[in-house]
């Protein structure tokens, strides 16, 4: 399937349109409801991080590209922000009591556990590209009876 892409300005009020784009594209490709939910969340968290930690309030754009193949969905998130590599963010302790937890820091963890692979690279002309890959093995049914779980 030809990749589909959406470009937004780096503003938090555009996150809903990103989620809508991912939801529609992944559902059109036949992903199960749970896979769609996972992809929506992984992208929402990653784009939120680009806006908050990459651009840090400065203007810019974020491009989200989805490529759906029978065995995997590949997502590329590109920006022109200063380098921000979420793969270096430490994994939080999800068993800690509330008082021992940092406030926040869970977004990268969610994007990581909801996908199978997360890669970051600095683009040749500057900016970041985050690649998220989710394997679809065993999650795609051949029937079209509406029950896609």
């Amino acid at each position, binding site marked *: 399937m030809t990749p589909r892409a959406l470009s937004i300005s780096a503003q938090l009020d555009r996150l809903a349109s990103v989620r809508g784009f991912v939801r529609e594209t992944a559902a059109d490709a036949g992903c199960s409801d749970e896979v769609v939910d996972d992809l929506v969340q992984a992208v929402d968290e990653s784009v939120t991080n680009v806006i908050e930690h990459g651009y840090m309030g400065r203007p810019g754009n974020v491009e989200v590209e989805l490529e759906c193949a029978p065995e995997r969905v590949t997502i590329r998130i590109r920006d022109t922000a200063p380098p921000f590599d979420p793969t270096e963010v430490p994994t939080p302790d999800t068993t800690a009591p509330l*008082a021992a937890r940092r406030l926040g*820091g869970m977004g990268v963890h969610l994007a990581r556990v909801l996908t199978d692979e997360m890669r970051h690279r600095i683009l040749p002309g500057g900016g970041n590209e985050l690649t998220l890959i989710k394997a679809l093995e065993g999650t795609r049914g051949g029937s079209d009876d509406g029950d896609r779980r």
Partner: protein
Amino acid sequence: MEIAAERLDDGAVVVLTLQGELDASNFEQLIDAAREAANEGARSLVLDLAGLSYMGSSGLVALHSAAMLMRGEEPPSVESGWSAFHQLGHEVNAPPEREPVTLVSPTPAVSRVLDRSGLSRIFPVHADRDAALGAVRDGR
């Protein structure tokens, strides 16, 4: 996202009903609603999540902040920067107490976020509002 507040037990308990999607663009609305409840004397917050179709990790920050507010603590403001958020958290040796935020009927998508972040083990989750209110009033 829409938030409706209902004061019960002379304001000691406040039920917030959330509708829509909770993300980084609007999570401060929930913190503000919790702060308003705390300022009016609430010490327990019940969050009805049946109408919440999406919760990003910012929503988890809002839940954490709401619990602090119910205990009379002030969470750092977003204006003070994300570094302040991330610096919070310290070593604790005391066993965890019952958190003053109770969750009601989260949708499957929201349940998965709570599970994956470990917060479903911290905040009591009930299937309906009556069960949640019963548990809050009994101190369970």
